[in-house]
């Protein structure tokens, strides 16, 4: 920088405020002063950059972030190009929801007004392996997207367990780490599993409840649970906390567990839906004050008010390869006005991790699904 004020030397060298804003005739800066000002500018800029990186978690490599969560899914299950990082094996379905109007008492969401809305969904098996052999004990999932007439959407992802085994995302993650296969034995280390249960009594309690419910024989005759609590707001502005359940109209049958083919659960679903439409009642369980809304490992007490708000009908099935459902993120926090998250820490974490999982798989080439279009047609 040329110093055009060189002739008006001043021993002081201070910023002369009288001549602000232009300071045209202010004294030139001494070398020390110049350095100090440049250093000050440098520090301010570094501070700004540092604050930005701090917010982005660059200085906390231990922090559990959505990206580190999905990295762990990839370590446990491997990378399967184009597939979900959890509930990777699945098939798509379509149908509709007939609301009976009862839900409007709880929530002003348009989906609960009397009438029918189209639904697209996806049945899945828990775990990150898209070709895992079906087993009765594997968690079964159902993701649904309701398209409301005003353009809003409601998405939900439910499973067939009556309670969730993990109370917060850290517990879910720690269990994922504990379930990682040992490279030598190709089995998870049982000691790690035991240690996890010992330090997570709520998981042990939840597993006891889960084991007391024998899984049904198929996707079609099982109930699916929201597990997480949600806050409903009705037209009067009154809030209630609810959890919901899809209870099957198809009668419960215990699974035989006898030697079955690799895709017996999915084949059973395809056969059954091609015979007749499958139906579930959507039932809201209403919390009483004091019921835990922030811990999905704990069931609400028996006898809570149940409100049947309508019937879900699923009448067609399609391979993921041809269905738009593959490209939907069944983020449980895509909610219409009148439904909001509770303080359950799983909810925001699910939204964040599903988004990360979705972003990664969206950019990957799609490999054939286990349940191919020809398997659905046969």
């Amino acid at each position, binding site marked *: 920088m040329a110093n055009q004020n060189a002739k008006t030397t001043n021993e002081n060298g201070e910023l002369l405020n009288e001549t602000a*804003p232009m300071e045209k005739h202010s004294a030139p800066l001494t070398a020390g002063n110049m350095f100090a000002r440049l250093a000050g500018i440098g520090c301010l800029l570094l501070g700004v950059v540092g604050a930005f990186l701090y917010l982005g978690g660059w200085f906390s490599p231990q922090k559990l972030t959505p990206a580190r969560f999905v990295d762990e899914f990839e370590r446990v299950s491997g990378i399967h190009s184009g597939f979900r990082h959890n509930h990777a094996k699945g098939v798509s379905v379509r149908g509709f929801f007939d609301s009976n109007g009862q839900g409007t008492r709880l929530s002003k969401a348009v989906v609960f007004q009397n009438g029918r809305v189209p639904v697209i969904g996806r049945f899945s098996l828990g775990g990150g392996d898209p070709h895992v052999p079906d087993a009765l004990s594997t968690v079964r999932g159902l993701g649904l997207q309701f398209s409301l007439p005003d353009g809003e959407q409601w998405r939900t992802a439910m499973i067939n367990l009556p309670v969730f085994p993990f109370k917060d995302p850290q517990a879910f993650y720690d269990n994922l780490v504990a379930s990682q296969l040992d490279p030598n034995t190709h089995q998870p280390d049982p000691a790690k599993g035991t240690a996890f249960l010992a330090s997570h009594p709520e998981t042990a309690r939840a597993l006891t409840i889960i084991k007391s419910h024998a899984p049904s024989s198929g996707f079609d005759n099982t109930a699916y649970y929201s597990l997480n609590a949600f806050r409903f707001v009705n037209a009067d502005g009154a809030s209630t906390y609810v959890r919901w359940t899809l209870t099957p109209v198809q009668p419960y049958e215990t699974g035989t567990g006898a030697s079955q083919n690799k895709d017996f659960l999915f084949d059973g679903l395809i056969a059954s839906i091609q015979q007749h439409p499958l139906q579930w009642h959507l039932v809201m369980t209403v919390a009483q004050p004091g019921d835990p809304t922030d811990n999905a490992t704990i069931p609400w007490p028996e006898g809570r008010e149940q409100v049947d708000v309508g019937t879900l009908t699923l009448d067609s099935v399609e391979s993921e390869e041809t269905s738009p459902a593959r490209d939907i993120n069944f983020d449980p926090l*895509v909610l219409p006005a009148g439904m909001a998250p509770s303080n359950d820490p799983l909810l925001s974490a699910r939204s964040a991790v599903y988004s990360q999982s979705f972003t990664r798989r969206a950019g990957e080439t799609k490999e054939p699904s286990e349940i191919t279009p020809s398997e659905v047609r046969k």
Partner: protein
Amino acid sequence: MNARTTNRQQFTGSMRLLHWLMAALVLAMLGIGIAMVASLGDYHRLVSIHRPLGILILILVVIRFVNRCLSSLPPFPATMSPQERFAAHASEVLLYTLLLVEPLVGWGMLSAARYPIVLFGSLHLFPILPHSVTLYAVLRRTHTFLAYLLFLAFVAHFGAVLFHTLFVRDGMLSRMAPWRARAR
């Protein structure tokens, strides 16, 4: 941006108002954006603010651009060399472009993924792009890239203003200062 200039040494009141309002919004958006994608617990709350705030920036930048075209701009300070003037002009073009394109990419990527683009309550935007997750993946990366570029452009902008104000001492900050600068 064809700058019509006068002898006034300060940007007009409306330009200064829009500058500081948007500076606050843009810095908040960069912070919210980078924090939310690294957070499990605050993700939902932050992303619910991020969408409407981003759309607000989109609206404001259009107003700001029109306002700039209609305003008379103060001439560059005499202390700026032609090269500096070119750099300053180029950086302004870059900032305006990013402020326009970044929210459009945000809106576009959610459209391509067919997420509902909820602003508040039941108010949501229509999709502006066809459904394609491949397109989503590209735009999602673009959104990150442009956000970092915007951040770097801001750091350069802030650095240049600090350099002029504290080192060259040509009173550059007072040209955009929210208060009225004394006449010279």
